């Protein structure tokens, strides 16, 4: 099985994990994107939403499991076919929540174009934006190195 290992800087990453963990409650409450369901049947809507929430909670747990005791011992995270999809999805969910919760002042245009001057941001916006970039880097690593594994 193809696997990639990435060594991260503990002092840089540890504070970002606090932000991700802080969003876990939100992600366990509501889907990060609006439902597209046409049916007005509330039971069906509820079932649809529950399944979306269950999916994002499970994905987030897999993302956070990267940063367990082993990570704090050697600073290495490991991706392979067994966790790559869930982690890519979790990164997307957390980034969407970060935008909603912290990054509104940055503005969507700047966010989409990547034209944000980190040095000019103040806390907690700065840390949230660092986290947003960190998760994008994880996604890029997975897509670059494990795309074919995921598509399988």
């Amino acid at each position, binding site marked *: 099985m193809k696997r990639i290992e990435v060594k991260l800087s503990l002092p840089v990453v540890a504070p970002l994990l606090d932000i991700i963990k802080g969003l876990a409650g939100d992600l366990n409450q509501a*889907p*990060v*994107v*609006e*439902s*597209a*369901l*046409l*049916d007005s049947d509330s039971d069906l809507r509820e*079932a*649809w939403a529950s*399944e*979306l929430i269950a*999916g*994002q909670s499970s994905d987030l747990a897999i993302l956070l499991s990267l940063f367990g005791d082993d990570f704090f011992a050697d600073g290495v995270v490991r991706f392979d076919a067994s966790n790559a*999809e869930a982690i*890519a*999805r979790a990164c*997307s*969910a957390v*980034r*969407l929540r970060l*935008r909603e919760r912290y990054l509104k002042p940055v503005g*969507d*245009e700047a*966010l*989409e174009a990547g034209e944000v001057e980190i040095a000019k941001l103040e806390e907690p916006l700065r840390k949230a934006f660092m986290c947003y970039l960190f998760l*994008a880097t994880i*996604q*890029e690593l997975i*897509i*670059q190195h494990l*795309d074919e594994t*995921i*598509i399988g």
Partner: protein
Amino acid sequence: MIRPQAKSNPAYQPQAATLLQAEGGWKVVVLNDPVNLMSYVVLVFKKVFGFDEGTARKHMMEVHERGRSVVWSGLREPAEAYAFTLQLWHLTAVLESDEAH
């Protein structure tokens, strides 16, 4: 709730054309968002619809430049299932009836 398998296309089944006429068609439309990476959107399109790289990139660029792309059309039930799967991957997907246009 039925989740479509990657690379399947339920609309191509023999009874689908008749049902499509009776029920009317539905489009799965993906809308732009300022967060998801282009490469991630391409990955999702390949994974969910079985698109090749070129087709997935074409739809991604439509989403990026025009704000929306019709990624699938057919019967309502599979359209809803595809929209659900796209939402599991956190893309913003809406359903539109052919009759609305």
